[in-house]
């Protein structure tokens, strides 16, 4: 029986690679948007504008205080009530962007705050513009603090893409879920799904560990 199911699983293996490709697509697009959004928000969060800081603070608290699956339900079910119709795929990307940027924002803000104040003052007195201050002085120094947790956050974001399966996006977890209905071998199906996730996440975890060790030596 087991081997019968195994051969059926082998028959439908392209299905899993379609799912893997979808997961990679969602992960890649959201890592990209989250990083850009997260850096912009993080720079403002570490900045001087009190009102902006406060608004970003509320945004971050809401995102960090609620489960990702609830955020997905809010986006997928409630936006249509407000007249914004989104398909599952763009809704998933939007949810990922909102969630990921809030977490990356905190990492970036922490990194920028870790740069000593004297560096800002030196940059200002060298006559650099604000963008130059950030680009040439502050961000390069804060990257040492930002990079290891950022890569760690990337791993979490890639794993969180599994949650968008709840609104029917055909990514890896959803493929497993659809398959297990036809081939009732849960251990086998989800081991395969797990191995595929492992092959993406584990290299990144190793990279994160490596960066942590490297950046710690000063």
């Amino acid at each position, binding site marked *: 029986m087991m081997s019968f199911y195994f051969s059926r699983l082998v028959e439908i293996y392209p299905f899993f690679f379609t799912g893997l490709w979808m997961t990679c697509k969602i992960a890649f697009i959201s890592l990209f948007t989250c990083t850009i959004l997260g850096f912009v928000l993080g720079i403002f969060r570490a900045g001087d504008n009190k009102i902006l800081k406060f608004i970003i603070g509320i945004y971050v608290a*809401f995102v*960090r205080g609620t*489960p990702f*699956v*609830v955020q997905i*339900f809010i986006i997928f*079910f409630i936006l249509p009530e407000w007249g914004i119709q989104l398909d599952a795929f763009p809704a998933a990307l939007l949810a990922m962007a909102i969630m990921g940027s809030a977490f990356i924002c905190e990492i970036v803000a922490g990194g920028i705050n870790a740069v000593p104040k004297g560096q800002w003052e030196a940059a200002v007195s060298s006559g650099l513009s604000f963008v130059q201050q950030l680009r040439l002085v502050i961000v390069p120094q804060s990257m040492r603090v930002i990079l290891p947790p950022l890569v760690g956050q990337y791993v979490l974001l890639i794993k969180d893409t599994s949650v968008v399966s709840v609104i029917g996006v055909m990514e890896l977890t959803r493929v497993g879920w659809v398959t297990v209905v036809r081939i009732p071998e*849960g251990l086998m199906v989800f081991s395969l799904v797990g191995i595929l996730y*492992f092959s993406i*996440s584990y290299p990144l975890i190793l990279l994160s560990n490596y960066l942590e060790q490297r950046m710690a030596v000063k």
Partner: protein
Amino acid sequence: MLTDFNFRIIMEYLPLFLGGLKATFFISGVSILLALATGIIACSARISSIKALKYPAIAYIEIIRSTPLLVQIYFLYFGLPTLGLRIPELQTGILALTLNSGAYIAEIIRAGINAVEPGQLEAGVASGLSYLQRMRFIILPQALGVTVPPLLGQAIVLVKDSALLSLISVAELTRAGQIMTSERFMPSEAFFTVAFFYMCIYFVLKALADWSQKRLIFREAY
């Protein structure tokens, strides 16, 4: 938009939400305690010099950390019955959360132990303390203070992760929102209420974590 937000419906469904909240408390509380025990065992195995303990622990921790929790939940939910183990959804969910958080807690404790200076350990060896005595009198008192804030952080993550159990139809807080949505089709009322309750738990735990960050570290480690 929010002008027609219907509070009456929320009040009507309040018992359902409170029941869900209670279940979320119960699931998270039981899971964090079991995960703490799992984490301590896994960490002891991970740092031991016996290879038969060390490598299985590494495999456990790395496999859990590199796969999504949802896949782990489905693995147990669909996988255990094929092994002939039919356990209810609630227990399956608690088992998944425990195994998941246990791996992260093992790493948190290990980081705490690694944060203790090697000189302290050497001083313990030089004073003629046994391994257990070194752990009990030197390493753990210093390591535990450092681990409290990240452990509370893990508790926050665990409470949020317990929302995923709604997908295997465990009757917790998020499930209450789903039930209300399917019965009345009022998703904003349902999910904003759910989000509100999660935010309350988050703020309490966050305040505790910030407080312990300020206080415990300095008392225990310095």
